[in-house]
C-alpha cells in the first residue's frame, strides 16, 4: 500500500500542514521533504482533496420549525431558570433525568416514585402534623378591659418579618444580630382565644423577600393584569405613574435631594425619602429599573447617607435636627431599609456594608427616640417629658417593621410600646386619636386608617379593626369628602385594605388620575397633610398609593 511508503515522522504532520497548524520552521521542513518525496506528496494531496470535498458539503440553514421551537424553548427556560425553579420542579426533573439516564424497568420506576412519595408524607407528618398535635399553638390576642379589646374576632396574623440574617454581616458589635427565625410581634398581654381565626376575604400576601413597599421589578404585563383584576384602567394608571416619575426626576436637586416646597421647608429629608420610596416601590432601585430613575435613586440614597449624624447624642439621625425631624428620620430609615432590601444581592460589598451600618444606626435612633409611653414625638425625649403623637408614631413603627422584615434588629419592646400607645389612643368606637383618646378632629380618620394598616401589617389582635375599617370606608366612599383632600388617608387605606383583601383603590384611583396635572405632578395646595411638604411629596405619595394595586401577589 502506498501509505506504507510514506516516511515516518512526516505522515503525522501532513494533516497539520494541510490545515495550517504547523509552525513556520516545521512547515518549511515538511515542504522541503515533500518536494523530494512523491509518496508523501501524494498523501498530502489526498488529504487536501478530502478537505476540499468536505468543504463542498453545504451547510444547512436552520429551518423555520427550529426557530419557532427555539423561541418556545427560550420562553419556557426563562420561566424555569434555576433561580426560579421550585423544589418540586427540581425534584421531578432530577427523577426524570435519573430515569432517562439509567435504563430501569417500569416496576423499578414505580417503586422509586412510591418510596419518594412515602418519604415526603413521612417528613410532613413528622415535622408538621405531629408537633402540632403534641403542642397545639394557642392563638395569642390582646385584651384591654378599658378600651374594649376582647378576644373576639381575632384574625389570623400574617408573618411580620422573615429575617435572613444577612443584614447582620459585618455590623458593628454594638448591634445585636438579626433574628434568623420567623419573627412575629408578640403582645405583652396574652389570652388564649377560643374563637376560630378568620381568614381575610381575598387573602393577599407579601412575597417572602419583598419589603413593606417593594416587591422587585414587575413587568408591565403583570402590573396591568393585577390592575385589571382590581377593576382599574391599567394603561391609564401606568401612564400616570410614568408621568409622575418623569416629573419627579426633573425635580431632583443636584445633591440628590427633593425640596420641601410646602409650608415647611424642613421636610427636605422626608420628601426625598418618600420620593425614593415611590421609585423603589415601582421597581426602580440603585441597580435595577429604568437607567434614568436608577440614577435618581442612587443620588437620593447618597443624599440620605451623607445627611446622617455619625456621632454624638443624635448619632444615627438622618437629616438635620431641625423642625419635626423625627418624621424625616422615620421615612428616611424606611427608605434606606427598602433600598438595601431590594438590592441586597446586587450591591457591592462596600456599598451594602455602608447601607447596613447606616440602617443599624438609624434603627437604633428610632428606638432611642421612643418615649416611655411607647409612642414618638417630634424630637428625642429629654428627661421625663413624654409627649407622643400617633402620626409620627405610625411612621416610626413602619420603619421598624420594615427593618425587622429585612433582618435588622428591631426590638420587640419597641413594638410592645407602640401597641401600648395605640391602645391608649384608641376609643371604644375604634377611632384613633392624635395626642389622646377621643381626639375627633379630621386627622382622626387618617390616623385610624394608619392604625388599621399597622394592625394588619403586624397582625395585632385588635378587635375593633372591622369597625375601624367601616369608618375609613365611609370616608373613602365620599368623593367630595376627606378622601379627596388627604393623600395620607388614601395611602394608608390602599395598603390596609390590600392586606385585608379588599379593593378600595377603585374608590379613589379615578379621582387621582383626573386630578393629576399634565406634567405628571399633583398639587398639594388643598391636601391636608401634603400642603406642608409640597407637590413632590404628594406626587410620591400618590404614586405609592397607586402602585399598591400591583405590589401584592395573590
Amino acid at each position, binding site marked *: 500500500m502506498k501509505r506504507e511508503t510514506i516516511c515516518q515522522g512526516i505522515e503525522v504532520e501532513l*494533516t497539520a500542514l494541510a*490545515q495550517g*497548524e504547523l509552525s513556520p520552521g516545521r512547515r518549511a521542513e515538511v515542504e522541503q521533504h515533500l518536494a523530494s518525496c512523491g509518496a508523501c506528496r501524494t498523501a498530502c494531496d489526498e488529504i487536501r482533496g478530502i478537505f476540499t470535498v468536505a468543504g463542498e458539503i453545504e*451547510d*444547512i440553514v*436552520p429551518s423555520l420549525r427550529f426557530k419557532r421551537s*427555539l423561541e418556545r424553548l427560550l420562553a419556557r427556560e426563562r420561566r424555569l431558570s*434555576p433561580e426560579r425553579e421550585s423544589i418540586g420542579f427540581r425534584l421531578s426533573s432530577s427523577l426524570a433525568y435519573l430515569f432517562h439516564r439509567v435504563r430501569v424497568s417500569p416496576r423499578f420506576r414505580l417503586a422509586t416514585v412510591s418510596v419518594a412519595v412515602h418519604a415526603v408524607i413521612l417528613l410532613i407528618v413528622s415535622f408538621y402534623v405531629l408537633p402540632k398535635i403534641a403542642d397545639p399553638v394557642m392563638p395569642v390576642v390582646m385584651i384591654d378591659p378599658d378600651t374594649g379589646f376582647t378576644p373576639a374576632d381575632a384574625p389570623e396574623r400574617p408573618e411580620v418579618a422573615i429575617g435572613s440574617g444577612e443584614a447582620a454581616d459585618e455590623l458593628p458589635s454594638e448591634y445585636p444580630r438579626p433574628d434568623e427565625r420567623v419573627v412575629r410581634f408578640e403582645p405583652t398581654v396574652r389570652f388564649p382565644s377560643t374563637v376560630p381565626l378568620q381568614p381575610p376575604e381575598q387573602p393577599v400576601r407579601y412575597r417572602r423577600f419583598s419589603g413593606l413597599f417593594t416587591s422587585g421589578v414587575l413587568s408591565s404585563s403583570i402590573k396591568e393584569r393585577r390592575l385589571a383584576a382590581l377593576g382599574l384602567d391599567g394603561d391609564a394608571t401606568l401612564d400616570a405613574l410614568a408621568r409622575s416619575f418623569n416629573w419627579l426626576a426633573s425635580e431632583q436637586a443636584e445633591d440628590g435631594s427633593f425640596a420641601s416646597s410646602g409650608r415647611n421647608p424642613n421636610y427636605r429629608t422626608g420628601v426625598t425619602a418618600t420620593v425614593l420610596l415611590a421609585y423603589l416601590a415601582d421597581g426602580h432601585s440603585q441597580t435595577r429599573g429604568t437607567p434614568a430613575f436608577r440614577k435618581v435613586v442612587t443620588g437620593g440614597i447618597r443624599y440620605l447617607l451623607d445627611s446622617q449624624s455619625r456621632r454624638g447624642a443624635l448619632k444615627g439621625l438622618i437629616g438635620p435636627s431641625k423642625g419635626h425631624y423625627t418624621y424625616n428620620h422615620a421615612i428616611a430609615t424606611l427608605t434606606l431599609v427598602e433600598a438595601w432590601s431590594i438590592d441586597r444581592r446586587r450591591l457591592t460589598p462596600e456599598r451594602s456594608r455602608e447601607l447596613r451600618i447606616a440602617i443599624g444606626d438609624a434603627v437604633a435612633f428610632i428606638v432611642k427616640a421612643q418615649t416611655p409611653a411607647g409612642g414618638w414625638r417630634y424630637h428625642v425625649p429629654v428627661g421625663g417629658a413624654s409627649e407622643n403623637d400617633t402620626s409620627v408614631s405610625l411612621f416610626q413603627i413602619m420603619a421598624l417593621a420594615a427593618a425587622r422584615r429585612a433582618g435588622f434588629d428591631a426590638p420587640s419592646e419597641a413594638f410592645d410600646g407602640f401597641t401600648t400607645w395605640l391602645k391608649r389612643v384608641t376609643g371604644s368606637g375604634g377611632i384613633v386619636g392624635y395626642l389622646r383618646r377621643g381626639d375627633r378632629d379630621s386627622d382622626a380618620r387618617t390616623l385610624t386608617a394608619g392604625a388599621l394598616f399597622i394592625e394588619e401589617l403586624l397582625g395585632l389582635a385588635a378587635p375593633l379593626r372591622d369597625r375601624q375599617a367601616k369608618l375609613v370606608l365611609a370616608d373613602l366612599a365620599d368623593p367630595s369628602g376627606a378622601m379627596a383632600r388627604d393623600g395620607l388617608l388614601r395611602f394608608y387605606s390602599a395598603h390596609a385594605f390590600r392586606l385585608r383583601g379588599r379593593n378600595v383603590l377603585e374608590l379613589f384611583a379615578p379621582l387621582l388620575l383626573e386630578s393629576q396635572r399634565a406634567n405628571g405632578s399633583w398639587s398639594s395646595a388643598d391636601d391636608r397633610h401634603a400642603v406642608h411638604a409640597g407637590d413632590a411629596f404628594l406626587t410620591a405619595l400618590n404614586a405609592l398609593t397607586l402602585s399598591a394595586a400591583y405590589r401584592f401577589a395573590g
Partner: protein
Amino acid sequence: MERFRDGDDDAFPGIVARFQKPLVNFFYRLTWDRFTSEDYAQEVFARLIRHRKSYRRSAKLSTYVFRIARNYWIDRYRERANAPKMTSLNMTVGTGEGRGLSLGDTVEGSGPAPAEELKRKEIRERLKEAVECLPEEQRLVFVLSENQGLKYAEISEVMEIPVGTVKSRMHAAMRRLRDLLKDLSDEA
C-alpha cells in the same frame, strides 16, 4: 454571555443568532439528519440557559458553547441504538455504484468513471458515510476542525485534551478517511 449570565435576558437572542447555524451544522455533520441536528442544537441552547451561571470569562464563548455541544453529543451518541460502529476492512461503505463492495474489494478495484458532476456528488456522499464511520472522538475533532474551523488549541479546550492529542486524532481521522475513500483516489 456575561450580561446574560448576570441576568440580562435580552443578551441571549444575540447568542442564539451567533451560534444557531454553527451548532445546527455541527450536529448535522455528526448525524447527517436535519431534524436531529436541530433538536440537539435546541437542547444545547437550553443547557446554556440552565448553566449560564457557570460561565467564566476565562473561557472563550465559542469554546464554552461547543464544549456543551460536545458533552451533549457524547450523551446522545452513547444512547443511540444505531450508534456508528468502528469500521473494519470488511465493512461495506459507499453509495451508488460503490455500494455493496467491501473495502477489501474496492481498495484494489476501479469502477466505471461517472460524469464529473455525478462523480463530485458521489464523492461527497461517500465522504459523509466515511465520516460517520469514524470513531467518536476522531469524528468530533474532524468536525470541529473542518466544519467549525476551530484551531487545534481551541479544539483541545472544547474536548479537554492536550493539543498533541488533537493533532494525533486528526491525523488518525484523516488516515482512516483516506483508507475508506481509497478507491476514489485510485480512480483519479
